[in-house]
C-alpha cells in the first residue's frame, strides 16, 4: 500500500535547521488499521503531512501504491490527494458556509462530477454515517461528533484507498470519541487502509498496529503485519 524508506525532513528556521524526521522507515499493507503515536514535537504531524502529500521531504522515498511521491507539482499532488487519500482532521475543517451535503460533495466537485450526481452520492455517504436527515444543515448547527462524521463522509466520498486521520477524536468527549472510532473501524472493515495519528492510547488500542515516534525516529512498531 505505502512504503517509506529512509525519509528525512528538516525545517530550516533562520540560521539552524531542525531535523524533524530521521530515517523514518516503514511499510503499511493494504487494509491495515494503523496508529501513529508520539508526544507533541515527535514529528508525527509532519509524517502525516508527508503521507498526505501535503508536504515534501528532503531525502528518502515515499511510494503510494506504485507511485513515487516526490517533488510533485502542486496540481499533480492535488490530483493524487483527491484520488487516493481521504483526510479527517481534529478540528473537522468543514466549510462553515456550506451545508453538510455540500461539504461531503466537495471532493467530487474537484473531480468535475456534475452537481446533481455528486449531491446524490453525497447523500448516500451521509446516510452511511447516519446523518441523512442533517444534509441541509450548516456545520454551526451540528455537534462535534456530527461534524466529524460529516468530515468522515467527505473523506470517503472520493473512494480513497487510504484514510489519514489527524487526532480525529482530539476535540471530542469520550462517548463521541468511541463512536467515531467505531465508525473508523467500520470503514477499515470495508477494506480501506486507515492511518490515525493520535496521542491517546485508547484510540491507539482500537487499531491493529501502533507506530511510535520519538524525536523524529520510529522507536517502536507493535503488531507490524508480516511483509
Amino acid at each position: 500500500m505505502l512504503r517509506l524508506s529512509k525519509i528525512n525532513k528538516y525545517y530550516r528556521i533562520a540560521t539552524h535547521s531542525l531535523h524533524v524526521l530521521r530515517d523514518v522507515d516503514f511499510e503499511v499493507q493494504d487494509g491495515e488499521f494503523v496508529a501513529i503515536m508520539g508526544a507533541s514535537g515527535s514529528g508525527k504531524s509532519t509524517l502525516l503531512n508527508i503521507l498526505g502529500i501535503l508536504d515534501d521531504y528532503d531525502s528518502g522515498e515515499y511510494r503510494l501504491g506504485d507511485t513515487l511521491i516526490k517533488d510533485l507539482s502542486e496540481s499533480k499532488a492535488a490530483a493524487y490527494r483527491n484520488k487516493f487519500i481521504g483526510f479527517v482532521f481534529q478540528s473537522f475543517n468543514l466549510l462553515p458556509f456550506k451545508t453538510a451535503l455540500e461539504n461531503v460533495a466537495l471532493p467530487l466537485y474537484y473531480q468535475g462530477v456534475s452537481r446533481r450526481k455528486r449531491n446524490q452520492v453525497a447523500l448516500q455517504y451521509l446516510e452511511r454515517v447516519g446523518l441523512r436527515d442533517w444534509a441541509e444543515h450548516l456545520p454551526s448547527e451540528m455537534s462535534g461528533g456530527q461534524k466529524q462524521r460529516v468530515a468522515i463522509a467527505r473523506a470517503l466520498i472520493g473512494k480513497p484507498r487510504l484514510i489519514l486521520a489527524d487526532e480525529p477524536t482530539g476535540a471530542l468527549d469520550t462517548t463521541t470519541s468511541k463512536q467515531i472510532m467505531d465508525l473508523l473501524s467500520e470503514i477499515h472493515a470495508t477494506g480501506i487502509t486507515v492511518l490515525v495519528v493520535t496521542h491517546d492510547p485508547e484510540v491507539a488500542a482500537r487499531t491493529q498496529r501502533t507506530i511510535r515516534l520519538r524525536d523524529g525516529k520510529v522507536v517502536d512498531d507493535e503488531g507490524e503485519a508480516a511483509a
Partner: protein
Amino acid sequence: MFDLDKWKEIWATLRSNKLRTFLTAFGVFWGILMLMAMLGFASSLETGSRRQMKGLATNMLFVWGQATTESYDGLPTGREIQFTMDDIEPIRRLPAVDAVAPRIQLGGWQSGFTVAYESKSGSFQVYGDYPDLTRIIAFGYEAGRFINQRDILEQRKVAVIGNLVRDELYPPDVDPVGTYIKISGVYFQVVGVMKTLRTGREGERDALTVYVPFTTMRASFNMGNRVGFFALTAKPGFAGPAVETQVRSILKQRHRVSPTDELAIGSFNMFQVFEKIGGIFTAIALVGWVVGMLTLLAGVIGVSNIMLITVKERTKEIGVRKALGATPASIVAMVMKEAVVLTALAGLMGMAAGVGLLALAGVVLEHATNVPFGPPEVPLSTALVAVAVLVGAGGLAGIMPAAHAASIKPIEALRAE
C-alpha cells in the same frame, strides 16, 4: 461549464461580510459613476455649444478688405482695399464655392442706425443683403418672407426685421408686415419678420438687425459699387482652409495686393473655429476618460486590497480545499471570479446610476437654451467599452489575491488553528 455551486460559493463569500463587500463595491460603483458623469458632462457641453452654434453653416467663410501693409505693383502701403460687385463673379466661378452673398452695412461694420416706426425708434444694424444669405445663415420667419430676387432687381424699398427689432418698435397687437419703417429718412415696407436660428450673441445680433435688398441700399444711400464683405460657403467635400486661400488669392490679384501681404484682406473661417472647438471637446472628453479611469483604478485597487484580506482570512478554507484536491488553478479561478463578479456587479450598478443621472440631466437640459449644456449623450459603444474595462479591471483586481491564494500551503493553512 455552468455550475450553480460556483455562483453559490461566490455569493456566500461576498455575503459573509456585507459591509466590507458593500464598501469595496462602492469604490467601483463610484468610479464608473464618475466616468459616466465626466463623459456625460463633456458630451453635454458639446451638444450645448453646438446647439448655440446651430444656424451657422459650418463651412462658412467671411472675407473683407483692410489696408495693405506692403507696397506692390507701384502702389503704396496703407492703401484701403474696397471690394466691389465686380468681385462676385470671379469668386462664384471657383469650383469649391457654393454660395456667395455680398453684404454691406449702413454706417460701417457693427454700427447702429436709427430706425423708426411711427413715433418709436431704436438703434439697429442695417444690412444690405442678397437672398443667398439664407443659404449661409439659417433663418426662420415669424411672419412674411426674406428678401427675394425681384426685390434686388427692382430695387424695392422693402425690409425684413429681426424679431427683437419688432419687439422694440411695435406694440404687441400690431402686425409689422405691410407697415413702413423709416431708415435715415427713407421709408421701407416691412415684408417679413425674421427669427434667427442661431443662439447666443450671434443670434441676438441677427435679431436686432434690419435687412434690406442690397441694391436698394446701394441706391438709397449712395454706396456705389461697394461691398462691405462677402459671406460665402464652401461646397461639401472641399477643405475649408483651401477654399479660404483660393478666395483670398483671387481677391489679392484683382485688387493688386502683394501675394505675401496677409493683412490687406481679412477673413474669418468657421471651419477652423469648428475644428478648434471639436479639438477642445475631444480634449474635454479625454480628460473625462482619464479622470474617470483613475477613479475607477482607485476602486479597483480597493477591490484588490479587500480581496487580499479576504484571501488571508480564508487561508484555512483554501487549505482545506487544497487538501481535498483543489488545484492551484482552480483556486486562482475561484478568487478571480469573485473579483470579477464583485467589480462587474458594482460597475453595472454604477453604470445604471450613471445612465439614470444623465437621463435626468437630459430632461432638465433639453429646453434650457441659455446655457451651453445640452442633453448629455453617452453612446452605447462607450458604455460597452466601460463594461469591458470593468471586467478587465475585475480580473486585474483579482490577480494579486489569487496568486496569494494559490501559494497558500495546505499544511500551513491547516496548522492555523
